């Protein structure tokens, strides 16, 4: 048996050091935050938590409240759809120079702009937009549009760069102007990909629009924030259920659509 055994693997010093460093980082984190996980499970805090959870039930399904929730859910959908639509338009406009169609300088400038738009999270944009446009769903729409146009602009630009240029070049060679060559030579090739990206972002934005309201940007999130601030727990519970339902519906329908199209 002995001679069949593979040689003993070499002792990996770097791996051991990395593991040690990770352990130190984790323990250090708990220590730094002075978290006592055990403290959560004492009788007093468990009773406190049970009381807190209990205050959410029974959920408020009264007619007036559910009507408001429908309104909030529709508002959330409208925010996400409009935000994505605006982002598709702006992203496309920015993707054209970012894919190098207007020279090197324009390319790096628009790339920088896209990176900036993308690196600011939606919620930060929302706080800024609440200042710029006032409380309400319009601020949420703008916030989603700003962040998403950064994301989509970059994806669109990459798609445009990777498209074969033969068709557009043939059109241009036979005398078509640049716009025509783009619309009839390049766009038909990339359109399915652009559409797929946009729908995917829309799906993510529905989820995001549901929580943007925490900073006052409309939709279900704003309802949840209000009810929690007024200690109306049963009402808050219904809003959370509505959020779960919305996300489940979006997940389910997108999985179904994907299967249908694949």
């Amino acid at each position, binding site marked *: 048996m002995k001679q069949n055994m593979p040689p003993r693997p070499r002792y990996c010093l770097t791996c051991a050091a*990395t593991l040690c460093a990770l352990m130190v980082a984790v323990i250090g984190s708990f220590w730094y935050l002075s978290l006592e996980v055990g403290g959560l499970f004492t009788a007093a805090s468990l009773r406190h*938590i049970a009381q807190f959870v209990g205050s959410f039930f029974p959920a408020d399904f009264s007619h007036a409240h559910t009507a408001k929730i429908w309104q909030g859910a529709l*508002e959330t959908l409208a925010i996400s759809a409009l935000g994505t639509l605006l982002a598709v338009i702006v992203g496309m406009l920015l993707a054209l120079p970012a894919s190098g169609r207007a020279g090197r300088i324009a390319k790096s400038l628009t790339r920088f702009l896209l990176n900036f738009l993308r*690196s600011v999270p939606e919620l930060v944009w929302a706080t800024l937009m609440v200042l*710029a446009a*006032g409380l309400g*769903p319009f601020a*949420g729409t703008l916030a989603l549009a700003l962040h998403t146009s950064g994301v989509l602009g970059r994806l669109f630009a990459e798609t445009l760069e990777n498209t074969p240029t033969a068709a557009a070049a043939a059109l241009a060679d036979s005398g078509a102007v640049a716009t025509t060559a783009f619309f009839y030579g390049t766009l038909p090739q990339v359109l399915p990909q652009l559409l797929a990206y946009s729908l995917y972002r829309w799906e993510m934005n529905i989820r995001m629009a549901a929580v943007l309201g925490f900073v006052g940007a409309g939709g279900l999130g704003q309802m*949840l924030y209000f009810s929690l601030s007024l200690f109306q727990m049963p009402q808050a519970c219904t809003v959370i259920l509505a*959020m779960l339902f919305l996300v489940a519906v979006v997940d389910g329908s997108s999985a179904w659509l994907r299967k249908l199209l694949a």
Partner: protein
Amino acid sequence: MNPRTPPRDPALLPRLSLTVLALAVLWPMLLLAEFNPAALFDAKNLKVMRHFLATFLPPDFSPDFLQLIATATLETLAIATAGIALAMCLGVPLALIATRSLSLSQIAMRADSRRWQGSDALRWAGRGVLMLLRGIPEIVWALLLVRALGLGPAAGVLALAITYSGMLGKVYAEILESGDARPTLALLESGSGRLAALGYGLLPGVLRELTSYTVYRWECAVRASIIMGFVGAGGLGQLMELSMRMLNGGEVVTIFITFLLMVMLADGISHVLRKMT
């Protein structure tokens, strides 16, 4: 070429009806979203924004504030790390329950002749729990937990742990199923225990992917813990929310620079960790 232009666009009808449909959907949406670009140029809003933007420069680099930022940054990183660690404590066992690849019944009977069994029920229960855990976004948990546990990082850590354990568990289970099943099967068939089969049969093949996904999630957790600060869960986000509320632009810019540096740092660390495995 064709001497006559065709009498009309053959795709006219679908195009026209699509346009009409799009407008019919768009109009109520614009109303619902209170779409009103004029609000951007409203005199009052413009004044607030102009004042706010004017305070952006110069960024606030006073030592006191930098000290605050350093503490908040460490806190954010610690929230992300502790949250992921807790999430793994919950997610790994759930993934092992939910995955099909360590099932003993799969070797007893081949898949097509199997009937519904208790182990299937347990597996589906595990999947259900994972779905519930990741169903509510971490920021909603943070908002709730801040009310239950008070302002501060504890709410952020727990919120991350709840949502991310669901995500980690689901993806771990999928990765375990996507790996090469033959070594595990061979071990299970020759009578080894499940944990040994996991450690010697399955893990060597998928460890790289597991690490890389965990590191990616940590990166997301850093971002998420900044965001969660906006509802009072500690760290850099809470500081930013305060500065924004007081319309102190200089502080906002400094925090923003820190934020960008931190995201870049997290990118770098995850790049190094992924290269090591």
